[in-house]
């Protein structure tokens, strides 16, 4: 039973991966399409990383801090040492993880609401610090960031897409492995009941910090990838919206599952882009607010649970 489940998920994963690889070949090398897809991949990574933290029962409202720290670190190192972004992206991730552990240390003892507030405030603090350190970060004007792949190479955007796709797949695979490993089980146990987990001999602090570090690491990588794609970074990267998007993606897709953030990011981006074509403005966000409320209320496991819901409905009818 379990094996069958696993294999169908793997099957699905492979098919969507093949599709992702083929998209540029089917539709041609469209700069716009690939830009949209690259950003989507970045946010899939980001949402999955956020989801990993939520797995330990810690819901962050300020993940943009790590997203931005990753971006700034990578851009600054790449600029000052003159090395390729490939190496510095990792540095961005590691520095974000380091900061993540620090903020995690403050958070481990806190309850959900407190943690939400502290992370939210943390993003504001990081924003202020970044603008104050203008000798390093360029202040409000921001600083240029190297392109991932030099624009002089013909069809560079295609390589960039495949590169980001590759990184996304690796990140998702690692997160999947973590979720399925003992660590994932421990995190789940902590989420369900911290006290019981402690009694069972799980080192709660260690695992919570680990979740923070890993989540911040991948968020930092996603942030670094985005700004190396953009070629410029400004403090706008710490915007509240940037903190909230991954939450919306995860909840609507399906919290605490590996496929939830992926599906959520794709569907919400798609919805957003198509409603934009109708000229919807505020209505779009009203709709997103409604979706959030309705999903929390009626579909707590997100869109991924729709097939199961239908299935159980059908079964109860027959």
């Amino acid at each position, binding site marked *: 039973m379990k094996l*069958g489940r696993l294999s*169908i998920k793997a*099957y*699905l994963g492979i*098919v*969507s991966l093949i*599709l992702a690889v083929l*998209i540029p070949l*089917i*539709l041609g090398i*469209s*700069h*716009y*399409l690939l*830009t*949209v*897809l690259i*950003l989507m991949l970045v946010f899939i990574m980001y949402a999955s990383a956020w989801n990993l933290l939520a797995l330990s029962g810690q819901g962050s409202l300020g993940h943009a801090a790590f997203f931005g720290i990753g971006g700034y670190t990578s851009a600054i190192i790449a600029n000052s040492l003159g090395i390729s972004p490939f190496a510095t992206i990792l540095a961005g991730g590691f520095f974000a993880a380091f900061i993540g552990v620090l903020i995690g240390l403050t958070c481990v003892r806190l309850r959900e609401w407190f943690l939400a507030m502290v992370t939210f405030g943390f993003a504001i603090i990081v924003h202020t610090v970044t*603008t104050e350190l203008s000798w390093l970060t360029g*202040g*409000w*004007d*921001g600083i*240029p960031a190297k*392109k991932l792949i030099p*624009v002089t190479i013909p069809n560079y955007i295609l390589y960039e897409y495949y590169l980001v796709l590759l990184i996304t797949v690796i990140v998702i695979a690692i997160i999947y492995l973590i979720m399925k490993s003992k660590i994932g089980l421990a995190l789940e146990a902590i989420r369900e009941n911290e006290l019981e987990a402690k009694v069972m001999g799980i080192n709660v602090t260690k695992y919570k910090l680990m979740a923070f570090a890993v989540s911040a690491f991948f968020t930092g990588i996603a942030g670094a990838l985005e700004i190396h794609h*953009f*070629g*410029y970074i*400004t*403090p*706008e*990267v710490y*915007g509240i*919206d940037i903190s909230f998007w991954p939450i919306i993606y995860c909840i609507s897709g399906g919290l605490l599952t590996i496929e939830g953030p992926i599906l959520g990011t*794709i*569907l919400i981006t*798609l919805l957003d*882009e*198509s409603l*934009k*074509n109708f000229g919807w*403005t*505020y209505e*779009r966000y009203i709709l997103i607010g409604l979706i959030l409320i309705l999903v929390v209320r009626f579909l707590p496991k997100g869109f991924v649970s729709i*097939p199961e819901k239908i*299935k159980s409905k059908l079964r109860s009818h027959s």
Partner: protein
Amino acid sequence: MRKYGILVTVVIVSLLLAISLGQLAGAESEADEIKIGLVAPLTGGASTTGTDMWESAVLAADEINAAGGVNVNGVNMQITLVKGDTETSREGGVKVVTKLITEDEVDILVGGFSSGITSADQVVAAEHKVPFIITGASSPTITHRTDIDTSYFFHHCPTTDDYGESTILFVDEIVKPEIYEQFDFPADRPLRLAVLYQDSAYGVGVYDGIKKTIENYNLNMEVVAEEKFKMSETDFRTTLTVIKAAEPDVVYPAAFLNEQTLIVSQGMRDVSLNTIYLSVECNDDPDYYTGVERWGEYSIQESRFGPYAIPSGPLQDAVVKFRDDFEAKWGAPPSMMGASTYEGVYIAAEAVKDAGTRDKGAVRDALAGIEMTQMVEAMKDGVITFTPDYRESKFELYMQQLIWDETVGETRPKIVWPDSVKETDFVLPDWYEPGSAPTPEEPGFEAVFAIAGLLAVAYLVLRRQK
């Protein structure tokens, strides 16, 4: 069976995704039209400004098309505007500029609002070498940055440096002598200036412009207080109290409309900081006059296009016509960003005409050498032209003073500077209170206070913990 069902669903969803995205693509370029991509925040935080920009551009394009289009090397071409919504976000900006350039294949870009967003989507434009007439982002970095090739960017709106410069020069030339005469100050006494700026690229930019002007012109001025505030702050009372304690002669807030309204009304009403308030051009807006009410009387505004004051001289008729046409078409008067975007479309049309082709390199060269008569905003020497170094057009910014108008129950601006366009003289109100050097206080007093305060807090917290 069920497994296949899910599989099929996923494949279909992915395909739909691919197709719908693909369909956004693929607009064909007509042979005899000039495609202008208008980059503006039509949704999100700055949507009001963005909508103004779009409406002005439509007005300009309609006017040009009604007059027969643009004569490009003997062929009359119509202008087609393509909407580019940045959603007031970096992601949105990059996506839409990429779309305009690679899918809609526009010949030239006009617009761009907010320096943070523009600096990201500029990278795309530079990469594809598409000329971009920037009419809404005020940071000088836009054309000064060196990491990308900026030679395709033309800045047609004043920069934060320009705001600071004209305002400070006006203060030095007009306000200072008036104060010094009335209060018998010695000429060597430096003018006491307080700056209260928004903590953003815009506010910091204005403050830099002020400092640069004082230095470059070697003005006898002293910044006695520099305070900053967070964007969309609403409570300025504490900051204004501290500014008042520094005893300034004039106060220069670099703020947006909502903030400026509150700064002036809280300063006059709550803190009794009875001084001359200066302001940046974005506050020359009907909402400002309604919001600031009587508190705004006698305050100073820098401007280049406004709802009420019209610079006297050659521009007058053009401004009235533009305003009436705009109001007839859209039901409300145009804004300042609208005016420069309106001109931006005309500049784009003129450049294509001069180049005689839609080739982007040729259009760029034509823009670099363009010389057009000013349209609805006063330009230096009456000509729209871009400087050779950083491709910035130079505006003739003017200063206006708000005077109470009993008939409308609001203040109305009157242009007081420079002489070429002025309507009336600057007046120093009778309630005006100048600053004077504060008496020297005991050094280190605040530090003792601060340390004592911190110790007290620490003590309380620690005691509680026990």
